[in-house]
Structures are given as structure tokens and as C-alpha cells.
């Protein structure tokens, strides 16, 4: 985008030869291709560095550029490889990491997916888009939202796995997305009304009372700041859940869009962080990206191991004291059930609530006999079925009580 602008900025530095600056510009492009956020200011600083004599000593230049261009640990870790490959012509271990070749390779297939998606969605675009445009003007209203759900009424009690024809599935998806939206609006409103802080704001009090000689007659109070609840969703995407996964993905997409603080993870035999993919505005594209990630290695659900990964690498970052962790799974653990129990205990210590949604719960004759679910249940605050839209909606009062 700014490659030409960057180059022209370099021209101001007389002592940097044109060739070098062109090369630098293409290095910046390589970095951007590899996902580093490199802006104009960084480019100028980089040129200044090269002019200051760093260019003569490659190891030093690498270290300097590394500090300048990295913004997070992942950038930091891959930078040396990128630098060496570009400037020193060395081949790095993972060839695919260099010069955007990985993206180039996957681009066509991604594009193909998109095209296929838009073709498929074309027929149903009316169902897909009408509700969201209806919703826009009612952003503040709150109540209008709820009326909008009536279209899904006939679907509300149908178990997701019994939805067969594409149109019904499409409707269920849209309803799940709307439900997620409605949950968010209502939650916020209640939260705001409930909290009335009583702390005195001395600064404004003094200000207001100067006119009558400073005697504090009119007190100014401070209200406690509203803090949104954070929702972390762990979705089981294993084979045994396949009939439900799609609807939940859509629900999660809606929730992530609307909750300012929400994170989502998928797990089957391992754990994948999917918030980034989910934040794609276009629901159909997000679902496509996800269904690729959701394809398990085939065989089994390692809930315990996935939770362990979560606790170890993600929990510190995504969980704080007002976090509700929502696990959507049937609890068929093929790994170590004791490990699951231990990790659930660790998780329960960290977060405010754990809700476990089990779609199988509503089946006739189901009892929590699976080893996994037995080990996990002592740590779960809410254990509920989530096989129909109305059972999803029933979760809302629980969330507002947090």
C-alpha cells in the first residue's frame, strides 16, 4: 500500500543510495507479507538507521531491525529467519515462512472457497441479510431486537441434528446469530441500571461549590464504571459433535461480534485459537475459515489435553476475574479422564463461572456416564442442554446474574 510512499520518504536521506532504499522497501513488503505491522514511521526510522552506519554490520542491523519491526513474541521469533533469507540469501528451515510463499500457495484455494461460498449464499441472501439490516436502526432500542426473533419461533424447539433441509439450517444459523446479538444488548442495559456508585468526586465537588464560598453543599458523586463481562468459549469440534458444530460456530461468531470482550477456541485432539478467524465480518467467510480449522485429525476428543494447553498458554491472557468460560462438548473424553478433572480444577480457580453445555443432555435416556463428564462435573457451575435455540436463549438469565 505505502511502498511507493515509503520509497519517496527515503529519498530525503541523501547518503542512502537509491538501490539500497529500493531493497529496503521490498524488505518492508516482505515483512508485511509475513504479517508484521510495519508502517511509514518504521520505514523512515529504518532508513535513518541504515544511514547511521548500521548497514555496514549485518548482525547489528538485524538486531536493530528486529527491535524496530517486531511488535510481539511471534514476530520476534521469526524475524531472524526472515532477515537472513532476505538480506543474506540464506535458506531458513521452514521455507514456507519466507516471502509470503505460504500465502501465495494457499491463496487460490481460499479464493476458491470464497467464490463457492458466495455462489451458495446467493440463493439465501434474503434470509441471511434482511434481519441484520432491520436491526441496525434499533441499535439503542433493545426491545425491537426481541421481536425480531419471532421468525425463528417455529424452529426454537427443534433439535439441531434434526434440521435437514438447507433452508431450515440457514434459518437456524441466522436465529443463532440474532440471539447472540440480543444477549449482548440486554446484558449491557441491565448492567448499567444496576450499578450506582456512591463515591464522592472531590475535584468536581470543589469546582461546583466555589460560587458559594467553597462550602460543599452540592456533592458530586462518582458512579462505578461499567465493566463488560468477558466470555470465553471452548467448542468441541470432534466427530461426535459434528451435528451441532455448525450452529454453534454461527452462534459464537455472533457473540464475538457483539461482546467487546469475547474469545473463542476450538478443540478436538488439540486446541486452536479461533477468535481472529471469527472476527471476520462476513459470517460465511468466517465459517469457511473455521470449518477448515475445525477438521479434526479424525478420532477422539482430548478434552483434558486441550484444557491443559488452554490453561498453560492462553488462560493468563484471556481470563480475568469477570470471565465466564463456556465449554460446549458432549464430554466423550478419549484421553485421560483424570487429567481432565485436574485441569478443570485449575480452570475453576481462575475464572468466575464455568458453564458446560452438552447437547446430548436432552436426548432421551441420557445420563452423564461418560468418564470425562463425570470428572468435570464437580467444577461446573451450570450444566445445561444446548440442543435447541430456546435452550440457548435460556442461558441468558444465567449470564446476566454474573
Amino acid at each position, binding site marked *: 500500500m505505502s511502498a511507493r510512499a515509503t520509497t519517496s520518504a527515503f529519498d530525503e536521506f541523501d547518503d542512502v543510495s537509491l538501490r539500497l532504499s529500493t531493497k529496503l522497501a521490498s524488505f518492508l513488503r516482505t515483512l508485511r507479507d509475513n504479517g508484521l505491522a510495519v508502517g511509514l514511521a*518504521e520505514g523512515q526510522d529504518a532508513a535513518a538507521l541504515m544511514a547511521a552506519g548500521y548497514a555496514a554490520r549485518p548482525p547489528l542491523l538485524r538486531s536493530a531491525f528486529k527491535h524496530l519491526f517486531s*511488535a510481539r513474541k511471534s514476530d520476534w521469533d521469526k524475524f531472524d529467519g526472515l532477515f537472513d533469507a532476505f538480506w543474506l540469501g540464506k535458506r531458513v528451515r521452514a521455507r514456507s515462512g519466507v516471502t509470503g510463499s505460504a500465502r501465495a500457495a494457499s491463496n487460490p484455494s481460499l479464493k476458491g472457497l470464497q467464490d463457492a461460498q458466495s455462489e451458495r449464499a446467493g440463493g439465501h441472501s434474503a434470509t441471511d441479510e434482511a434481519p441484520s439490516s432491520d436491526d441496525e436502526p434499533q441499535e439503542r432500542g433493545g426491545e425491537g431486537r426481541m421481536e425480531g426473533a419471532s421468525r425463528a419461533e417455529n424452529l426454537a424447539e427443534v433439535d439441531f441434528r434434526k434440521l435437514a433441509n438447507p433452508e431450515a439450517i440457514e434459518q437456524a444459523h441466522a436465529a443463532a446469530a440474532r440471539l447472540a446479538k440480543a444477549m449482548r444488548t440486554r446484558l449491557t442495559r441491565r448492567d448499567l441500571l444496576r450499578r450506582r456508585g456512591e463515591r464522592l468526586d472531590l475535584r468536581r465537588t470543589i469546582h461546583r461549590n466555589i460560587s458559594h*464560598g467553597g462550602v460543599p453543599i452540592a456533592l458530586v458523586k462518582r458512579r462505578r464504571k461499567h465493566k463488560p463481562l468477558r466470555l470465553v468459549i471452548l467448542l468441541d469440534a470432534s466427530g461426535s459433535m459434528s451435528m451441532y458444530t455448525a450452529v454453534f460456530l454461527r452462534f459464537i461468531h455472533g457473540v464475538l461480534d457483539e461482546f467487546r470482550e469475547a474469545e473463542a477456541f476450538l478443540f478436538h485432539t488439540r486446541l486452536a485459537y479461533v477468535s481472529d478467524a471469527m472476527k471476520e465480518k462476513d459470517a460465511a467467510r468466517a465459517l469457511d475459515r473455521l470449518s477448515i480449522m475445525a477438521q479434526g485429525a479424525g478420532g477422539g476428543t482430548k478434552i483434558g489435553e486441550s484444557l491443559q494447553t488452554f490453561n498453560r498458554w492462553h488462560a493468563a491472557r484471556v481470563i480475568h476475574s469477570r470471565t465466564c468460560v463456556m465449554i460446549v462438548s458432549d464430554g466423550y473424553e478419549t484421553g485421560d479422564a483424570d487429567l481432565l478433572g485436574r485441569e478443570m480444577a485449575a480452570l475453576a480457580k481462575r475464572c468466575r463461572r464455568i458453564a458446560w453445555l452438552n447437547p446430548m443432555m436432552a436426548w432421551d435416556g441420557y445420563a452423564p456416564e461418560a468418564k470425562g463428564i463425570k470428572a468435570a462435573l464437580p467444577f461446573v457451575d451450570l450444566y445445561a442442554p444446548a440442543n435447541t435455540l430456546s435452550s440457548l436463549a435460556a442461558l441468558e438469565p444465567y449470564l446476566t446474574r454474573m
Partner: protein
Amino acid sequence: MQNRDEIAQALAACGYIADGELATALALMQMLRRPLLLEGEAGVGKTEVAKALACVHTAELIRLQCYEGLDQSAALYEWNYQRQLLAIEAHRGHADAIEDQIFSEKYLLERPLLAAIRRAQPPVLLIDEIDRADDEFEAFLLELLSDFQVSIPELGTINASTIPHVVLTSNGTRELSDALRRRCLYHYVDYPDVDREARIILAKVDGADASLALQIARMVESIRKEELRKMPGVAETLDWAAALVGLDVRDMHDAPDVVHETLMCLLKTHEDRARFKPEVTARLLGRVA
């Protein structure tokens, strides 16, 4: 102090054992006038970097510890309400004069951020654990770090008399905004390697000799490789070294029991402690030459 090598020497003179790249980072900070963002596990010595930097520049260190709910009045400035109320009482009846008076410098309390931009000599401003503050504060900080000016409604705009050296640290309890990351230079502080850790022990613990320091550093390194809930940081290593020295241990192989019992300096959760049975300690000790 433009030069990287000079900075490396000055760091060593200040008793900070730096890895090679840190000196580059500090030199760049100076040259490009950007803040430095340090990330890394808890206990790898991020805060120490700021202290060392203050020593290198012989500057004052101003520290702002972030926490959830940190706001302007704790970070930037606050009016001295007690004195204001007293002044109002004392000047009762002269309402016009009061306003000008009680909103003057005399009644202003500096907090770290304001203090940092009003010093005669550029200080080192350490903004510790920025990830604990909330998004709003981060946005405010970003503005301050780019303009270096503060506006106080009652007083007007205050421009920085000097630009401080800014160091931010983060433990990764929250994802920082891209804007803040872009603004800063980035340095990832890792656990020191054996050689560096041994030198740190030698520098910081009185009475430790080179062979014991090396043994301790090797032992700590292999402990970090075990599956632990909480990895021991450099501060823990130093505690442990001090404990061993204090208990008169010359060679760890001579006193395996003491080594095992003093592991409490390193292992800080019940689970980790329970996992480290004497056999585990003995196994690790066996690998330490």
C-alpha cells in the same frame, strides 16, 4: 551515549549483565526516541532493565505501577483537596480570588507521568505491567507518548521540558493494542542462558564462587525444563543462591539434602513442590557436572 558498545560497557559497569541485543535496543531508544516495550515471563528481570538504564544515563527512575482501574488522578496529577478546602476557609468572602488561587501550581500534586515530563534532566520512566491497566488508560498513554504534553483543564497545556526515556513492561496478561506496539521498540526478555545466569549470581550474591554459581545456573536451567506450573525466575535463582551460600554449601553434590530442602526458594506452588520428590532432585543433580 549514542554508541551501542559504550552502552554495553556502561551496563556492565552498572552491574547489569545484559545479553547482546539489549544494548542495541537501548542505543536505538536513544537514537530514534521511541519507547521500549519489554515482554517476557514474570521474573526474567524486565524491571531491572529500567533500573540499569537509569544507572547508565545517571538519571532518576520514575516508576508507574499499573493496575486494573488505574486512572488519571493516580497516574498523571491530582489536586490537593485538603489544602484547597483549607484555603477556601481562610479566604472566606473573597470568592473571586479563590478560584485563581486554588487552581494554581501550588495545589497541584504531581503523579509519575506528569513528573516525568517536567524534570530538568530527562528521567527514565518505567511503566510497569502495562497489561494490567485497562484499554482506556492504554489509549491515553499512547497519546501522551506521542505528544509529550498534558492538558489540565484548570491550568492549561503543559509541555514536556524534557523527553523521558520510556520503558514499558508487560507480562502478557492482556493483549496490548497494535497501536501501542507499533509506537514502541520491542524486546523479548528470555530466561538467561547458563553462562549469563551464573554471571548474574556472581555479581549479585556475595560469597558465591564461580563453580557453585555455575552449578546453580545449570540446575536451575534443568528445573525450568521440567513441566512446571510456575517457572522460577532470576530473582528466585538469586534467593536460592543466597540460601545455599548462607547454609555454607560449597558443592551441591556434597549436600543433596540441603539442595532438595532449599528448593522451596524456586518452586512456589504446592503442585510443583509435590512433584519434586528427592529422586527427581537427585536425577537433576546427577546431570549437573
